[in-house]
């Protein structure tokens, strides 16, 4: 078991931007953030403030232009692409606003994919997958393709998929942004329950103050920098 007070993530002066039509546009301007293992963090900010960009950097999908991101004292940027991918598939689970299930895989196959990528044969993970699906009431849809599911159902599958391989870090980018309030509530409850039960660390991007309030801590992105919310 990991030390609950150990520092999991350390963002040190992270800056990032994009080049568009030849001109640079800074999005993140020196972001500093420490996150402890097991912590639940809500990230808020205006649309276009750079929340998704930051999540991508934390998830190792991209590397910051300057600054460092340490995950358990390892600099993500220093890892190199292949190593970062291996790291990501073991340690990180992603959940998106749009559900990002693989349309060519059944619900169960979608859930088992991270296990397989991590070297666990599908036959072994199968029961765990079915159990999780059962927990969210979708076990009878295991062999269905995602496009037959409703948005809420898809998001529940996406959550299971993000958690099945026991990642240290779960990144959820507006997981309820696409759902009605009631369904969003259900999905968040599920996420909350599963994350807390396993002690995962969660970073959740949201526009809803109500949702943010569930978190241990709320940070706001303003002008490319983080500010702590009361």
């Amino acid at each position, binding site marked *: 078991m990991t030390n609950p007070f150990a520092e999991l993530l350390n963002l040190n002066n992270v800056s990032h931007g994009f080049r568009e039509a030849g001109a640079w546009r800074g999005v993140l301007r020196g972001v500093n953030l420490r996150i402890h293992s097991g912590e639940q963090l809500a990230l808020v900010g205006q649309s276009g403030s750079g929340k998704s960009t930051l999540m991508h950097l934390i998830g190792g999908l*991209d590397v910051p232009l300057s600054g460092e991101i340490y995950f358990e004292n390892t600099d993500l940027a220093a890892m190199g*692409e292949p190593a970062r991918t291996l790291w990501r*598939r*073991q340690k990180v689970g992603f959940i998106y606003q749009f559900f990002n299930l693989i*349309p*060519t895989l059944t619900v169960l196959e979608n859930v088992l994919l991270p296990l*397989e*990528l991590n070297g666990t044969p*599908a036959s072994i993970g199968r029961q765990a997958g079915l159990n999780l699906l059962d927990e969210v009431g979708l076990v009878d849809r295991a062999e269905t393709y995602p496009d037959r599911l409703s948005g809420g159902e898809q998001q529940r599958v996406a959550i299971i998929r993000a958690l099945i391989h026991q990642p240290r870090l779960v990144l959820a980018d507006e997981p309820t942004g696409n759902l009605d309030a009631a369904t969003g509530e259900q999905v968040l409850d599920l996420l909350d329950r599963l994350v807390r039960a396993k002690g995962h660390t969660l970073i959740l991007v949201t526009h809803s103050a109500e949702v943010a309030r569930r978190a241990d801590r709320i940070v706001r992105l303003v002008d490319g920098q983080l500010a702590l919310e009361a």
Partner: protein
Amino acid sequence: MSILGRANRRHFVRHPLQLILAILGVALGVAMVVSIDLAAKSTHRAFALSMEALTGRYTHHLTGGPMGIPESLFTRLRVEAGLRETAPAVEGYIGLKETTCHLIGFDVFSERNLRSRFVNAARGEEGMRLLTEPNTVLLSAVSAQRLGLKPGDELKVMIDNRPHQLILVGYAEGSMPPDPVLEGVMLADITTAQELLGRVGWLDRIDLVLGEDPSLDMKINALLPEGVELISAAGRQSATQNMTAAFELNLRAMSLLALLVGSFLIYNTMAFSVLQRRELLASLRVLGATSRQLLSEILWEAAALGLFGGLVGMGFGVLAARVLLHMVTRTINDIYFVLTVTEFMMDPWVLVYGVFLGMIIAVLAALGPAIEASLTSPIMTRARSGVEGSARRAIPWLAMMGVLALLVATGLFAVNLDGLVPAIAGVFLLLLGYGLLSPVFLLGGVWVLGALGRVSWGWLIRLAVRSIGATISRSGLAIAALTIAIAVSIGVGTMIDSFRGSIAEWLDQILQADIYIAMPASTPRLSPPLPDGLAERLGSIPGVDRVSSGRRVFVSTSKGESELLALDPPYLDQPGFRFKDSDGKDLWAHFPELRGVFISEPYAQRHRLAVGDRLVIKAGKGSVTLPVAGIFFDYRSDQGLIVIHRRLYNELWQDPTHTSLGVYLKPGADLSDVRSELDRRLSDLHLPLSVRSNREIRDISLETFERTFAITQVLRLLAVGVAFIGIFSALMALQYERRREMAVLRATGLTPWQTGGLVLLQTGFMGLMAGLLALPLGLMVALALVRVINLRSFGWTMDLSISVWPLILAVGLSVLAALLAGAYPARLAMRTSPAQGLREE
């Protein structure tokens, strides 16, 4: 199968049409290569077998002389030189049912003592029957079976257009099992054959088995009459094989072209299948699939597609090869000699190589897109504009490579390198370079139309045109493929038209007489002489102005055995040839006094001769050295020929016979009157003469020309067909990607018809662009084919003639192909339900 693999594999299950198109793309590419290769190999083998049947296992042959070899030489060789292992032969071609057989008259007694092909026939009882019974022949068992004939049957055959009755007494194999080498071979006793072929007293060949003794050569040479030559079997075989080398090379070039178009198609389909899955791949990357995993996934998949497509293509290829073989054989029979063996040969290597080719090209084609898809960061991969952004960034680089390729191609054409290979490479670079440049042209076209659209055209057109520019990674490829295919079609078509035009013009020039008379040649090399005094008999027909004569023989020269034509043109004011670098008036006017030769362009090209060079010819009275006085354009043979005046020929050979006569009418004389009188006078001779008006000869020649190029025409259509599938799959892929956009448009208020119209407008515009872009490229290809490829492979210069209609037609074809390819996607777009389209994300 792993889940990761399944995720990718099912992409194709969900898009079966894409899968079918991808496989079809590989299959067609492979089929084209395999079929041409198989046909070429079969022809090659047919050729070798025909040669082997001819040459047997002798070490040397005697051939030559204007009339062939006098029979007496055979006896002298045996008696005076003491040669035992000698066998005489007379050969000719005869028609039996719908096939042509190779009639070989052989000496049963000589053959018995030699280990020849015919030893079994000679030793058996049927050999004796050939000797003792008149008009008896043996036929190869393979041919007999094919024609449903058995010993004892009467054969109705045509020799020199005259019917004959022969009796089949057995098989050429004797009592041995059927031998495919003998296919098409008919054997007769030498005396029978001489009578049938009108060659009494003459032989075509004496085959010899000579030991190592060098003095033997001297002894034989001393016995030989002028013009008859001793050559080794190997030499003879290679000389004839050289003949078809250019033809085979052309076929090979065709198969390379097929490969190019085929690989383009394969590249297209593979690139699309990867591009289409970018989102899927990105999701997998986010979940932690490594670049390498995805790369190998895609490459394995490409290999599997390639393998499957290759296998299907192999099947198509074998089927197509049979048709092609038929056409190729016919072409060879028309322009070179009769191939009696027509058996289809299955070369397993070609098949293995075809399938491998499919796999390798599929993998290579997928490599670029696969690497790109697996290397881009997962976030960038997700953005559609990212793809287009990098595609747009690639355009200048591609264009630069294109310009480079065009420069190298121009260089290859300009530096007159020897051989066909650099020329063919030049054509490929030309196509490739232009293809690489086509996205630039396309964007230019989009820009121009966009600018125009602002003025007056509807928003629908603007929408259609703009989205082509926005999806350049797909539309660019599709247009490049279509452009290349249409250009090849234009190029080859223009080349054939130019060729036909040059030949027609040439025929008009050389066919100056009104009626031509000759003995039909039953052997490839010898034209039988016409009866003496025929010219005088015809000259007295009312309405006839002059009668000219021609004598065609094969002679030995310092450049090897060559065809020589002796002419005495009656009118010296009108050159009978078109001369290179000279209007020929002067040359022609002094032709009768000329102590020199005219040579045809292919002859000059083949032997590197120029005006003023000297040629040594073995004549009846010994060798003479004659200067080349002029080079004329001539399309009758790619081996070339030498022309001298009849006076000089008579002086050198003392051979008064003619092989052809040309009858010139008086102005105002009626052709049909003269012809019927001529027919009446000739009918007394009871000879199988061929009498043809210049019109008929012209028509027959052009018909032969069309047959020769039938195969080219078929391949040309195939190339367009392949491109059609390419553009179809491109449009399907585009449509699939744009279904959301279409749904948004539908939801915004576009009617189904407008949606369909939008798609058709787009594809029509793409077709138009491809057609217009293909025009200059097509003409460049035509120029390269006419000025470089044909000149180097056959030695034929021809005038490039460009007609407007085929060009307009080509553009029309391009638009039509694109519209047809767009029809199904347009229907799909019309039926897109806005709700469904928007939901799928």
